[in-house]
């Protein structure tokens, strides 16, 4: 739960969901009453010890938390600088950090008496986590996924179907995450009575950015304790990849007021920041989309542009509003890694640590490696390994021109 001190960087958003000028509730009137009811229900749930106990129980016994904080010795030696620790969110049930948020929101949806859950997904990790939560709770599940993403994330599509979810292909736009989110919003507006929209990242209208952050903060809270237990002190730096930014926010937020901890968010630079990419903070400007004001990729007329990244989970032209705010306050340093750099990091982590990382997390590793080599050997760096990469092996094989995977 966020720190409420006025001089804290952890006290946002304000009561209307604003982080500075960012965030808010930019939705059609039809959805406004629903958004307000989600906010009210969440406000009650987060203060209810029974809710927190039930969530804690699921995180421990179903998700498998705490996830390990693993000292990656070979990678550290390779870069010859900082000690690199991997926060192993890839070891969670369903293979990514997404499940942390889904457990929280599914309990909220149940509490609100909703029978049907909808969600958007890019890489399919959030879709799989949502479908899993729905199977566990016996709720109907419909996942909106861009047609392009369905193609490049076939194993996750089949997993969702096995779990009992309907996967609805979205052909509008480029058929990626942005379009899936539009379609989920359209569905929600038509099914307001029985449907709960389980947003997978720290974006969308208030209260989602704050709520998803709160459910993901377990990542950073555990990291703090684990580092203390292993090294007897706080880490010196944190590195995480950012699409919408939920794994990053979950790791960063508990450390925001610890000024000595350097924090780096890594956006997807695609083919390069001067070409097609998905780095909203580096290449975008503040605008309004999907219920919140935040940095967005757009043209001069305010028309939204498609992001590009080899990683379907980062392929989004926006970013969570709290990240936009943290960029402007300067507390977090936002950088980027290209498709190629991410692929190199993917291979390196696989070969040196025997861990196949998600392409999303590979972006964090790509930057972390560069940074680590410039730092001293007593520097403690945490890289959020937000998901595992089994889902990505076909993409990687294709890129490397290797056969054997279809």
């Amino acid at each position, binding site marked *: 739960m966020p720190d409420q001190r006025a001089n804290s960087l952890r006290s946002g958003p304000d009561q*209307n969901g604003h982080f500075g000028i960012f965030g*808010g*509730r*930019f*939705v*059609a*009137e*039809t*959805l*406004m*009453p*629903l958004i307000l009811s989600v906010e009210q229900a969440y406000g009650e749930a987060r203060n209810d010890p029974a809710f927190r106990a039930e969530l804690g129980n699921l995180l421990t016994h179903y998700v498998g938390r705490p996830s390990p904080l693993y000292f990656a010795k070979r990678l550290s030696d390779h870069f010859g600088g900082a000690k690199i620790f991997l926060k192993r969110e890839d070891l969670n049930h369903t293979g990514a950090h997404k499940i942390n948020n889904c457990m929280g929101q599914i309990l909220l949806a149940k509490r609100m008496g909703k029978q049907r859950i909808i969600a958007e997904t890019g890489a399919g990790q959030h879709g799989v986590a949502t479908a899993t939560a729905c199977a566990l709770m016996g709720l109907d599940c419909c996942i909106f996924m861009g047609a392009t993403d369905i193609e490049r994330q076939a194993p996750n599509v089949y997993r969702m179907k096995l779990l009992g979810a309907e996967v609805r292909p979205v052909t*509008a*736009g480029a058929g990626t995450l*942005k379009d899936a989110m*539009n379609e989920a*919003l*359209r569905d929600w*507006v*038509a*099914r*307001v*009575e029985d449907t709960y929209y389980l947003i997978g990242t720290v974006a969308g209208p208030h209260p989602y950015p704050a709520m998803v952050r709160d459910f993901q903060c377990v990542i950073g809270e555990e990291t703090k304790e684990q580092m203390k237990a292993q090294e007897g002190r706080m880490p010196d730096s944190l590195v995480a990849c950012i699409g919408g930014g939920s794994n990053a926010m979950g790791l960063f937020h508990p450390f925001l007021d610890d000024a000595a901890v350097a924090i780096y968010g890594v956006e997807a630079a695609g083919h390069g920041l001067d070409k097609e990419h998905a780095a909203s903070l580096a290449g975008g*400007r503040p*605008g*309004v*989309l*999907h*219920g919140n004001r935040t940095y*967005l990729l*757009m043209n*001069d*007329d*305010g*028309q*939204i542009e498609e992001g590009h990244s080899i990683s379907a989970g980062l392929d989004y032209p926006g970013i969570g509003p709290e990240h936009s705010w943290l960029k402007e306050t300067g507390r977090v340093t936002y950088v980027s890694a290209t498709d190629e750099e991410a692929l190199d990091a993917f291979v390196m982590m696989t070969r040196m640590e025997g861990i196949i990382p998600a392409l999303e997390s590979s972006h964090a590793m790509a930057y972390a490696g560069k940074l680590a080599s410039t730092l001293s050997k007593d520097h403690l760096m945490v890289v959020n390994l937000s998901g595992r990469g089994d889902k990505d092996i076909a993409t990687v094989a294709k890129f490397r021109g290797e056969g054997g995977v279809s």
Partner: protein
Amino acid sequence: MSRLSQRFASLKAENRAGLVVFVTAGDPGRDVSQAILNGLPKAGADIIELGMPFTDAMADGPAIQEGSKRALAAGMTLPGVLEMVAAFRQGDAETPIVLMGYYNPVYIYGVERFAQDAAKAGVDGMIVVDLPPEEADELLTPLSRSGIDFIFLTAPTTDDARLPVVLNKASGFVYYVSITGVTGTVSASEAAVKAAVGRLKAQTQLPVAVGFGIKTPVQAAAVARHADAAVVGSAVVEMVATGDVAKVHQFVAELAAGVRKARGH
């Protein structure tokens, strides 16, 4: 008196509802779109809702999404929308024009500058789908300084407790979204429209226009029996897609005839 209040006053004097016609600016191309727009009053449109195209029309169904896409592909921009309004105004000083769309292009244009330029072009009102009253002030304030009405949406989900939150900031007219859903999909029953209009009228003096899901002259007439205006969008936009100006105006004339006959005189 603004064009909108003047128009609603004369509709009241005629004891009939108005027909609001929605087309997307620049759909399917600039010239055809201008020709369609210019001919709408003669075809029977009492008020024109001119769509500002946007890449991510989250509250719209397939018809209007496609219209937006066609307009953008043909090069329409927000300055282009204002130019079309100005061109329309050269031949028509009376028919109110309400711009409808999403906030981002307006925000990027700059709200102060936009309010001034829109007033200069001859815009009378604005509907911004993703600006609920909680977020609207930043645009509403400059618009009202420019004499442009901000028209809020109300929906079946806007309950009596919430209605004043919306109505307190509304001007021009109140737009009732008659279904929970996106544009151009399902239609509300006449009984539901009647009840909803009654619910709104109990809390506001402003005229009530009803839209979403009205596709035929018969449906338009049913709404026109109870509301101050009926809005038809997707069905017109589907005609616009053909690029046949006369066909669009013919369809609008049929809708107008339905609306004009609705109250049996």
